[in-house]
């Protein structure tokens, strides 16, 4: 691990540096994901652009209409402990609470969480696997033309939909699923100006984002939740601090008597390369009376075409169904 270390004092300087160093550089925010990846030789940037000194990107604020804005460099722990977020956007608190460890959350940022790469035992998982990886030909993520994970039955990879440029690793960010359910947007600034991207248009799979080389995330905006809106988030991982194998988030607006569902967004992460919007499940509840919670049929529709290679992927599919059912139960009762 050898690189040049430069510090950006403000956003415009960071963008200038991104333009100057291009693909050879990486932004260093919390570093809790970037540094292990560099130590595992998954990535070897020549320049690290430290953006931590940009204090103006660390904030939590509510606008008049209760629209939540979180600066990209806000530590996850600050978000978790924010009483305002706990009160108005408890789904975000719940999701952040499930992420990693106290030490990681003290330095790990919300922007970094969204911009992390994939987690795959054939790409970036541990020192032991580094030796294994060296004996295998490089995968798509490492510039090769093979996906080792797609040849085996695993719990951690996508079982549904198409690969992203050959890679079947899922989106590692827990917040991606949660923010997608909340219909959040991401503010991005680049040399041509700033723009707002909806979370569902932000990820392109395989740990990539739809960002230009000289663009960086500066803010996450979450719309207000109306009074009767409820949400729930569930995560399944190996151990409480690990990356999720599956996660699900549901947001629903019910009538005050809790009998009629006016609006719902249901997202399931971990089954596809990108978090999956469960449109059939949503249609099952949207503008209907909340009756029986039998969503098996709707889920079958959403998860049609799942690739079952063996016991692990069969378990994953089963677990996904149970998880969606649980999370719906928690929201629409």
């Amino acid at each position, binding site marked *: *691990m*050898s*690189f*040049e*270390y430069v510090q950006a004092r403000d956003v415009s300087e960071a963008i200038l540096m991104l333009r100057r160093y291009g693909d050879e550089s990486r932004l*260093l925010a919390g*570093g*809790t994901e970037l*540094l*292990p990846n560099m*130590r*595992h030789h998954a990535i070897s940037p020549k320049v*690290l652009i*430290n953006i*931590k000194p940009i204090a103006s990107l660390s904030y939590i604020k509510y606008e008049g209409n209760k629209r939540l804005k979180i600066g990209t460099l806000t530590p996850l*722990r600050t978000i978790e*402990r924010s009483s305002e977020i706990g009160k108005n956007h408890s789904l975000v608190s719940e999701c952040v*609470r499930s992420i*990693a*460890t*106290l*030490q*990681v959350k*003290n*330095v790990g940022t919300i922007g970094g969480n969204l911009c992390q790469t994939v987690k795959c035992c054939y790409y970036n998982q*541990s*020192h032991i696997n580094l030796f294994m990886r060296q004996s295998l030909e490089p995968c798509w993520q490492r510039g090769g033309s093979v996906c080792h994970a797609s040849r085996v039955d695993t719990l951690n990879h996508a079982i549904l939909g198409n690969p992203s440029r050959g890679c079947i690793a899922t989106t590692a960010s827990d917040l991606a699923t949660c923010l997608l359910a909340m219909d959040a947007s991401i503010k991005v600034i680049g040399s041509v100006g700033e723009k707002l991207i909806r979370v569902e248009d932000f990820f392109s799979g395989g740990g990539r984002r739809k960002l230009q080389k000289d663009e960086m995330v500066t803010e996450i905006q979450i719309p207000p939740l109306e009074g009767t809106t409820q949400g729930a988030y569930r995560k399944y991982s190996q151990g*409480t*601090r690990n990356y999720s194998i599956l996660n699900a988030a549901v947001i629903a607006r019910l009538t005050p008597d809790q009998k009629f569902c006016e609006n719902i967004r249901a997202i399931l992460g971990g089954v596809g390369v990108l978090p999956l919007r469960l449109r059939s499940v949503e249609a099952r509840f949207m503008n209907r009376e909340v009756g029986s919670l039998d969503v098996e049929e709707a889920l079958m529709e959403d998860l049609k075409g799942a690739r079952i290679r063996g016991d692990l992927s069969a378990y994953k599919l089963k677990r996904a169904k149970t998880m969606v059912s649980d999370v719906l139960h928690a929201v629409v009762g």
Partner: protein
Amino acid sequence: MFFMLSLVKELREGTVNHRRVNLKVNGMDHEVDVDPEDILVDVLREKLYLTGTKKGCDGTGECGACTVLLDGKAVYSCLTLAMDAAGKEITTIEDLARGTDLHAVQKAFLECGAVQCGFCTPGMILTAKALLDEDPKVTEREIKEAMRGNLCRCTGYVKIVEAIRRASEDYRR
């Protein structure tokens, strides 16, 4: 000899990045020469000889043995670049006791038998201290959540959680 050779190589390639930074560790200023890739745990142990901070998982942020406090917050020093720690208050386990007068968390660990081989203990104690400094009225669930970043292969965590609960009572007095 090896160092000279690598220095000559670096000079030729124009990649010399050594910098002298000021690290404030346990209230004392230390001027140290670091490379960009130097991680804080290595600098603490090998340049400042503060070997209370342990290195377990070797820089992957899994075991928590290397936990130190950076401006009062628990962080993994194996995932912190030494250069990033410049200008911040670094607290290591060496700063907790005042002579034979132990810190409340240290006392609680001893009283509850929360120490066995001791390798994870500095990280455990500093994480617990950071947690209790943040909010002494922690629940058992919060303790367990906060401590999930520290692995212990001997005691089985029950005594550790008990010790932190006892320390939290001490904090509140």
